[in-house]
């Protein structure tokens, strides 16, 4: 029930911010009706769980995003240098990275963070961890990627 209320509040805030109407009763009524309809449908479909409303991630995720932004910036410069080099020296590599996060949300966050930093793309999630494709040897830095996984594991919270 707590998750449901959070979902309704989040959807309502989204509706208000996107529409920008605060003083028209008719439109506000339509908005409230659509928010409730969407939330009830989600509940009926049984998808109001930790995957769709990941309350466990907050508030630690904001610090993580800030940190991730800098990582993305750094690796972008590297990839752009290769894209514009007269003779790009690529040495693509496939390797496994151990996956520390335990919850499904944590795993998804970690794998998407790997993909989001250019130069590395998560290809598959298996028993041995996450299969990563890297553009060059420099990007295939298992230590740095594991650091990212540790960070996610610290903030992911529990599955409940």
């Amino acid at each position, binding site marked *: 029930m707590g998750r449901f209320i959070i979902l309704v509040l989040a959807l309502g805030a989204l509706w208000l911010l996107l529409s920008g*109407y605060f003083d028209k009763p008719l*439109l506000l009524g339509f908005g409230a009706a659509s928010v409730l309809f969407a939330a009830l449908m989600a509940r009926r479909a*049984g998808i109001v769980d930790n995957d769709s409303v990941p309350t466990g991630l907050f508030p630690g995720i904001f610090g993580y995003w800030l940190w991730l932004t800098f990582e993305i910036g750094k690796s972008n410069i590297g990839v752009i240098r290769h894209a514009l080099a007269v003779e790009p020296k690529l040495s693509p590599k496939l390797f496994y990275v151990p996956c520390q996060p335990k919850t499904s949300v944590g795993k998804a966050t970690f794998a998407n963070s790997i993909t989001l930093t250019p130069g590395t793309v998560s290809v598959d999630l298996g028993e041995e961890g996450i299969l990563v494709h890297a553009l060059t040897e420099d990007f295939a830095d298992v230590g740095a990627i594991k650091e990212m996984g540790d960070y996610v594991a610290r903030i992911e919270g529990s599955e409940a």
Partner: protein
Amino acid sequence: MSAFEVELTPIVFLDLSLLTMLILVAFAMLRSRHLFAVVMLSGIYSLLSAAFFVSLDAVDVAFTEAAVGAGVSTVLMLAGMLLTARREKPKTPGRAPVALAVVFVTGAALAYATIDMPAFGDPDAPANSYVGQQYVDETPNDIAVPNIVTAVLASYRGFDTMGETMVIFTAGVAVMLLLGLGSARGGREVSDAEPEDGEAK
């Protein structure tokens, strides 16, 4: 009525490059024999033409183009691909002079017709000189819907768009039936074939 005065603003360049890309994509679709490539290119074509519609201020058309053209029709075409081969059969180079002639005559007629059209945004154009302004002025007072297009379609033109409203109503009823909103219990209970899956969830 009005001379063509082309002012080279960035928007004109934008329109020109969008149209050029549209033509390029269309030719690539004609030339390609690989059907998957054609489907992907048609998705790109929809995106481009939707961007062009936005540039023409036809925002509602752009909405529809994005949802139907880039979204639904791509998937429908892919589903159609399931029933056929992946490559088009090579055919003998086009010998269809009649079709070519028809296309050229129609195109020339359409191009000729544009000469009579009022300039884009002309205040004296028929579209702007009769009741249009009145709708723009009165809608906010008559109906509390901020989007004038919505208000005109759903309210002022409620009778001559009755067919359209019926379609939307039918679609709404179909969605409600599919979701099972009609029954008091909220749909039938459906159990999964494998009980392990149900427990794991």
